[in-house]
C-alpha cells in the first residue's frame, strides 16, 4: 500500500507539470485541450474500476467469500468517483468545443447510463442485508459492466456523434502522448491506492459488525 502511494503521489505532480509545462498546445482547441489528459484518463480508469468490480462479483457468486463482495463494492465506489470526474470535466470542455454543456450523443448518454447503474448498485446494497446484498449487487455489477463496451464503442456504433474517433488519442503529437500516458498511469495508481484503503476500511467495518453482533447475542443470551 505504502509503495503504491509513494509511486502515485509523485506521478500526479509529474503529470500536472507535464500537462501545464511540457505538452504542446494543440492547434484547434488550444489550452482547453489540456482538459483531455485527466478527462480521458479518468474515463479509462472507470473501465478498470468497473472491470475489477465485475471480476470480483463473478468470483463472489462462485465462491461466496464475503471479502470478494467487499472488494467489488470498493472498486465500484471508486469507479463511481472517477466516472463523476469524467462526467463533470467533460461538459466544461464541451462548452468550449461544442458550445453546449451537454448533448445527448451516444457516448455521453451511455456514460450517464453507466453512472446511474452504479448509483443503483449502491442503492440496492443499502436496501438489502448480508447474503442477499452480496448476491443481488454482484448480479447488478455484472449486468452494469455490459455498458462499458457500449461506452467504449459508442462512437463506432452510433456514428455522427460529437466525440472524436477512438483512434484519435493514439495519433497525438509525441509530447502530448507522453503526457497522457503519465496522467493515465498516475490515475491508475491513485485508483489502486484508494481501492486498498477503501477495501481495508470495509473489511474493518465488517469485522466490527460481526464482533458487535456476537457481543449483543452474548449480552441478551
Amino acid at each position, binding site marked *: 500500500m505504502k509503495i503504491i502511494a509513494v509511486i502515485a503521489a509523485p506521478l500526479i*505532480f509529474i503529470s*500536472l507539470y507535464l500537462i*501545464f509545462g511540457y505538452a504542446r498546445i494543440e492547434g484547434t482547441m488550444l*489550452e482547453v485541450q489540456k482538459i483531455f489528459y*485527466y478527462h480521458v484518463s479518468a474515463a479509462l480508469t472507470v473501465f478498470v474500476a468497473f472491470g475489477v468490480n465485475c471480476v470480483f462479483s463473478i468470483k463472489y457468486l462462485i465462491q461466496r467469500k464475503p471479502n470478494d463482495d467487499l472488494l467489488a463494492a470498493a472498486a465500484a465506489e471508486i469507479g463511481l468517483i472517477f466516472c463523476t*470526474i469524467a462526467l463533470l470535466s467533460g461538459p*466544461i470542455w464541451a462548452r*468550449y468545443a461544442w458550445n453546449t454543456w451537454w448533448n445527448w450523443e451516444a457516448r455521453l448518454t451511455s456514460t450517464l447510463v453507466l453512472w446511474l447503474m452504479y448509483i443503483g448498485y449502491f442503492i440496492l446494497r443499502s436496501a438489502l442485508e448480508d447474503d442477499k446484498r452480496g448476491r443481488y449487487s454482484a448480479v447488478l455489477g455484472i449486468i452494469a459492466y455490459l455498458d462499458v463496451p457500449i461506452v467504449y464503442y459508442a462512437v463506432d456504433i452510433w456514428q455522427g456523434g460529437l466525440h472524436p474517433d477512438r483512434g484519435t488519442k493514439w495519433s497525438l503529437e509525441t509530447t502530448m502522448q507522453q503526457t497522457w500516458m503519465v496522467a493515465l498511469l498516475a490515475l491508475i495508481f491513485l485508483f489502486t491506492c484508494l481501492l486498498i484503503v477503501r477495501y481495508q476500511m470495509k473489511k*474493518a467495518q465488517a469485522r466490527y459488525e460481526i464482533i458487535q453482533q456476537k457481543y449483543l447475542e452474548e449480552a441478551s443470551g
Partner: protein
Amino acid sequence: MKILVLVSFVIVLGLFLFATQVPVDITPDKVLAAVSEAVSKSEVPVDEEVVEQVVLSSIAVLEKGQSTRLKYLASAYLVIWLVFMLYVLRLGQQQQALDKRLAQLEQTPEAEEN
C-alpha cells in the same frame, strides 16, 4: 488529512493563477521574422504589409480568447480536485467514526468487569 487538503489546494490554486496569467508569448520581433520568412518562401508575389496585418489580427483574436480558454481549463481541474478532496475527506470521516466505535467496543467489557 488537513495538511493533504491544504497542500493540494495550494497546488491547484497555484496552477489556476499560473494558468490565468500566462500571456501569449508572441513578440513583434517574432511576428516580423515569421512574416518575412513566409514572404520569402512564397511562390507568388505577396504584399508584406498585408501579410503582417493578417498575422497581427489573428494574434489579437488568439489573445482575446486566451483568458476565456484558461478559465475553462482551470475550472475543469478545480472540479477534478474538488471531487477527489470531498471523497478523501469523507473517507477520513468514516475512518474516524469507525475508530471511535472500535474504541467504544473495546471499552465496554472492561467497564463491565470494573
